[in-house]
């Protein structure tokens, strides 16, 4: 799978970039393993995933070209 990754807030500080492409397996569990391999500090922070702008709560299948966002807790307002 070719996936676009978006990172926000303190996650972008930690990864050092806010948008990049990644190649990974066909589900989010696999994607997270790949990301945690590259950025071990992701273990220490709280975030959720959104695939194509929809929040996901469990392991979810990915499609080629999906955009996955790493979202720390919202703090608008």
């Amino acid at each position, binding site marked *: 799978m070719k996936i676009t990754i978006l990172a926000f*807030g303190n996650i972008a500080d930690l990864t050092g970039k806010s948008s990049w492409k990644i190649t990974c397996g066909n589900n989010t569990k696999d994607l997270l393993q790949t990301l945690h391999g590259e950025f071990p500090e992701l273990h220490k922070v709280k975030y959720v995933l959104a695939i194509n702008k929809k929040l996901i709560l469990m392991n979810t299948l990915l499609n080629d070209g999906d955009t996955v966002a790493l979202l720390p807790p919202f*703090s608008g*307002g």
Partner: protein
Amino acid sequence: MEQNKIKNVFVNGAISPIFVGEAIAKHTNKKNIGAHSIFLGQVRCDLIENNSVVAIHYSAYMEMAEERLHEIRESIFKKYNLICMHIYHSLGRVEAGGICLFVFTSSIHRKDSIDACTEIVERIKNEVAIWGKELFEDESFVWKNPA
């Protein structure tokens, strides 16, 4: 009803009190409105470990935030008998004392505008992909905790 208009929520920098006054003035010709409720979020000069917050820098996952704001608008219009609803949120830097959120609801009777305004504020804080970065005097920063 305005629920189908595409609304531009995001404002660069602080929302000016004059803008709020002008938004109110635009409703004097809507003669069926009896009640307006307004919530304003203002950036606090909090002291965090002896360091004063001088400003907050807001960023958003724009496409996702706009989609969710649209869903919030639709569901609030379904739930409450509102005549108007306006939501504005700052992006970028807002100095302490500046307004970063402006929620404005109008209805025939007060209960609808009051309850809708409160629910919109809660939902924006909990559901919309916006992040605040608290900037200190010494140019260090900390990511804001969800309120």
